C-alpha cells in the first residue's frame, strides 16, 4: 500500500508532467514511434494481402507469414537491427535517431505478418458466389475488389491491424532498450536505477495505451461491419501473433 502511495505521488508530482521527460512528451513520442511504422507496415502489407487474397496466388506464403513472424523474438530483431544496421549513425552522433530507426525496423517486421495474413484470409474468405455474381453483373476485377471483396473483408482486415497495432505499441516500449524515447524509458530507466515508482508508473501508462489501442481498433472493427451483415456472428480470427 505504501508503494502505491509513492506511485500516486509520482503521478501527482508536477515535475513529471513537464519537460522532455514529462508524461505528455513521453506519450507523444510513444504514439509517433508506434504510428509511423504501423502506417508504413499497412502500406506494404495491405497490397500484398489484397493481391494474394484476390488472385489466390502465393496463398501459402500469406498464411504462413504469421507463424514465421511469431517465432522470431522481438528483442532479437531489435538488437540485431541495432548492431548491424545503425552503428554508422551512432558514430555520426545520431544516437537517438539510430534507435528510432532501429525500433521502426523491428516494428515493421512484426506488424507486416499479421496484416498480410488477415487481409489474405478476409479477402479469400469472401463467398465465391458473391464474387461470381459481381462478375456476372459486369464488374471489372478492381471493382469487384473495391466494391465487394474489400467491404466484406474489412472487419477481418482490421482485426489484423489491431493485432499489429497492439504489438507495435509493445515493441515501442522495448525500443527504450536501444535508446528511443517513449514510455519504455520510464520502465527501462526505472529498472536500471532501481526507481520502482517510476518503473511502475511507466508500466501502467504503457498498459493503458496498449488497452486503449486494442479498444479503439475493436470499435473501428465493429463499425465497419457492412450494415447488411450486422447481427451476423462475428468473424473469429485468433490472435495471429502474441504479445511481445
Amino acid at each position, binding site marked *: 500500500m505504501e508503494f502505491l502511495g509513492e506511485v500516486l505521488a509520482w503521478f501527482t508530482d508536477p515535475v513529471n508532467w513537464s519537460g522532455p521527460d514529462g508524461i505528455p512528451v513521453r506519450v507523444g513520442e510513444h504514439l509517433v514511434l508506434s504510428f509511423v511504422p504501423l502506417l508504413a507496415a499497412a502500406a506494404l502489407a495491405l497490397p500484398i494481402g489484397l493481391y494474394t487474397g484476390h488472385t489466390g496466388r502465393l496463398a501459402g506464403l500469406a498464411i504462413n507469414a504469421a507463424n514465421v513472424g511469431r517465432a*522470431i523474438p522481438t528483442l532479437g530483431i531489435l538488437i540485431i537491427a541495432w548492431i548491424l544496421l545503425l552503428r554508422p549513425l551512432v558514430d555520426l552522433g545520431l544516437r537517438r535517431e539510430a534507435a528510432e530507426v532501429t525500433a521502426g525496423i523491428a516494428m515493421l517486421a512484426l506488424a507486416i505478418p499479421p496484416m498480410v495474413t488477415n487481409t489474405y484470409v478476409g479477402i479469400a474468405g469472401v463467398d465465391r458466389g458473391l464474387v461470381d455474381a459481381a462478375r456476372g453483373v459486369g464488374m471489372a476485377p478492381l471493382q469487384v475488389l473495391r466494391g465487394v471483396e474489400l467491404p466484406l473483408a474489412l472487419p477481418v482486415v482490421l482485426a489484423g491491424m489491431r493485432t499489429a497495432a*497492439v504489438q507495435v505499441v509493445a515493441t515501442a516500449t522495448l525500443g527504450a532498450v536501444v535508446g528511443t524515447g517513449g514510455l519504455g524509458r520510464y520502465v527501462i530507466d526505472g529498472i536500471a536505477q532501481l526507481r520502482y515508482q517510476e518503473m511502475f508508473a511507466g508500466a*501502467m501508462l504503457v498498459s493503458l495505451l496498449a488497452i486503449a489501442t486494442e479498444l479503439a481498433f475493436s470499435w473501428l472493427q465493429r463499425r465497419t461491419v457492412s450494415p447488411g451483415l450486422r447481427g451476423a456472428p462475428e468473424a473469429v480470427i485468433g490472435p495471429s501473433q502474441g504479445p511481445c
Partner: protein
Amino acid sequence: MTDGRPLVDVEWIVSNVDDIWQRTVDHVVLTVLAVGIGLLISFALALLVRRYRWLAGPVLGITGTLYTIPSLALFALLIPITGIRSILTAEIALVSYTLLILLRNILAGLEGVPPEVREAARGMGFSAWQLLWRVELPIALPVIIAGVRIATVTTIGLVTVTALIGIQSLGSLIVNIGLAQFFFTAVLIGASGAVVLAIAADLGLSALQRLLTPWSRSRATAT
C-alpha cells in the same frame, strides 16, 4: 563492424558452447513451466466456464486484457510484488500470456464435440467425468494441441524479454552480452537459438498430436 571482431565470431561460439547450451536449457525450462502451468489453469477455467456459462464473458475479458499488456510492462507491474531477478515474476507474466489462447482453444475443442456423440456416450452409461475424459477430450485434442503450439511458440519468444529483468535464458545472450558489449555473434546465437527452439517445439507438438489422435487427419485449426 564490431570493434575488429568478425561479424560471426566462430571462436567465441566454440569457447562458449557450454554457456550457450546452459542458456538453451534455461529457456526450455522457463517455457515448459509456463505452458504447463498455463495449461492446468486454462483447463480448470474451461471446466468452470462450461459449468457456469455467465463466467465466459468475464474470464475471456480478463485473459484478453492480460494478453494485450506489453510483456515488459507486465514484468514491471509485478516486480514490486514478486521482486526483480525473480523466476516467479517471469513465470506469472509468462503464464498469463498463455491463458487466452489455451482457454479459447480448449473451449472451442470441447464445443466442437458433436451432440450426438455426447448423447451416445450418455446412453452407454458414461458418467459426466468419463464423458469428459474418454469422449470429449480425445475429440477436442487436435484443437487443444493447436492452441498449445501457438502458446509455446509465443512463450519461447517472450522468454527472451525476461533477460531485461535479470532472468537467465537465450535472451541473456542477446541483452547481457550482445547489447552490453555491442557483440553481434551473441545476439545472433541468442535470437536464432530461440527461433530454432520455436520451430522444433512446433514440429514436435504437431507430431505428438498426430501420434495421440491417429484417427484425425490433423485438420486442427487454431481459433
